[in-house]
């Protein structure tokens, strides 16, 4: 398998006057979970369709697993699995028949198919219910089955288009855990689109942020936080007041400060020591109970990127 699973150069796709994907240039290393983050209509699904060779680019090019999406789409589709916008399951059929169909498509031997179906369904806790028609299943169970289908023929790369969208938090967490375990165990590269930032933070080794078809940032979540997010401190205590806010604003280590619900939220200039700031507050009469220091979350980085571009 090539070291780079996905490579795009200036990939662009127009739908009439609308540019869905705009000069997208990314490299996704093999073997990791890549999160493609963006709001609704950002171009995430169109990107997956382009990478699978289901759509032709208006401009630019893309390679998936070393194959050109325009000329070698069949090769790509035979080596990848996909859970697209909809689960794509045949609801009149049983779970077992759904997997049997895609196992046959994946050219697994009859014995190999049965073993693989059992392995995946057992791992996902669905084996006992394999003969039930999919229509009777909950959305969470269907999504799990769709993940099993995507992994069935042991692809080297899988595309997951918002797999936990519209699941309740319990089902989403369960699916996320299963995904992480399966991806690690199978050693596949995962191209995951989501607008769930907590999900991306937990699962992804690298993320790309897209908005209106344009790539805004790409890197490890920690890198993005370091690049975009400022270190922060939260101070809880009694006697905190607006005078203290003004006092802190005068400190060189403080980029900004605000008081909400009786707590101080401070954006720091770099990874500075907050002890002098705490001493300052204490000397001004505050009774400090708790100090929390940390970096901005991926969500804050994401929101900052979205605001920058508007």
């Amino acid at each position, binding site marked *: 398998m090539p070291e780079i699973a996905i490579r795009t150069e200036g990939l662009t796709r127009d739908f009439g006057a609308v540019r869905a994907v705009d000069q997208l240039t990314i490299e996704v290393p093999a073997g990791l979970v890549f999160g493609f983050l963006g709001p609704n209509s950002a171009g995430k699904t169109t990107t997956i369709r382009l990478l699978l060779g289901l759509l032709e680019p208006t401009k630019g090019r893309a390679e998936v697993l070393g194959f050109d999406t325009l000329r070698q789409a069949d090769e790509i589709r035979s080596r990848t699995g996909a*859970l697209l916008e*909809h689960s794509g399951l*045949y609801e*009149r*059929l049983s779970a077992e028949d759904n997997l049997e169909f895609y196992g046959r498509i994946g*050219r697994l031997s009859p014995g190999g198919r049965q073993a693989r179906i059992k392995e995946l369904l057992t791992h996902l806790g669905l084996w006992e219910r394999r003969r039930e028609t999919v229509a009777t299943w909950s959305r969470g169970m269907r999504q799990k089955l769709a993940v099993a289908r995507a992994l069935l023929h042991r692809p080297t790369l899988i595309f997951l288009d918002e797999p936990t969208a519209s699941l309740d938090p319990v089902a989403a967490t369960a699916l996320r855990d299963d995904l992480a375990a399966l991806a690690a165990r199978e050693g596949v590269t995962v191209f995951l689109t989501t607008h769930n930032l907590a999900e991306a933070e937990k699962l992804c080794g690298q993320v790309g942020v897209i908005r209106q078809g344009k790539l805004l940032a790409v890197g490890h979540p920690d890198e993005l936080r370091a690049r975009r997010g400022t270190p922060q401190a939260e101070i809880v205590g009694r006697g905190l007041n607006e005078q203290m806010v003004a006092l802190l604003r005068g400190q060189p280590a403080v980029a900004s400060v605000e008081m909400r619900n009786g707590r101080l939220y401070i954006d720091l200039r770099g990874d500075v020591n907050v002890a002098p700031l705490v001493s300052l507050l204490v000397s001004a009469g505050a009774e400090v109970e708790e100090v929390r220091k940390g970096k901005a979350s991926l969500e804050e980085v994401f929101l900052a990127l979205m605001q920058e571009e508007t």
Partner: protein
Amino acid sequence: MIADVQTVIWKEFKELFAQRTGLRGGVAGLLVLLAVFGIFMPLQTGRAWVESPAVLIYWAWMPLFFVSGVVADSFAGERERHTLETLLASRLSDRAILLGKIGAAVGYGWGLMLASLLLGVVTVNIAHGQGKFLFYPAGTALAIFILGLLAACLAASAGVLISLRAPTARQAQQTLSIAIMLLLFVPIFGIQALPVEWKAYLVRMMLAADLTRVVLIVMTILLTLDTGLFAAAMARFQRARLILD
């Protein structure tokens, strides 16, 4: 590619017999069709069911009816149920998907026609056999076999072509039904509308015509139409268009 076509046919049959009402409902629907065309109608028709050359028209028409009941769902139904894009994202080739869909519809329609035909023979023999085995003349049986297959292919190719374009299975079904009705009723009403002397000329010509020759001409026309419609369906089958539609 043959294995891929078989895989698509396998799935189509699984879905077909499962239907919305479950396996029992699917099988029950088939049994009703077999009862009507394999028992009721042969009983009504009597010995003519196997002896009259007019049965050729009946058996050539029947697959159109059977196939049109299922083929409209082939692509429009998958699109409606959001399974089409996942299927298109698989490694199956365009040709394998298309041939699989057509093959399943033909297999269903032609298979049902043959089953009705055999059941009809049994029915006629039980009701009117009088100790003698009644069956179609060899030439008629062969013509039924080939005409039925070609008619099933015609309905399947036309149905798939319509289904590729239709936004919903219901719309595809309606369009196909109209097309088949036109195919059946335009010649009937067209002939009725002819002047009397023209009709008389047609009747004289048909009585004088060599039946084998007529059947061969019809077969050639059907084969040409089948090939043309399949080529049109292949040309229409574009993954991007199917997804964006």
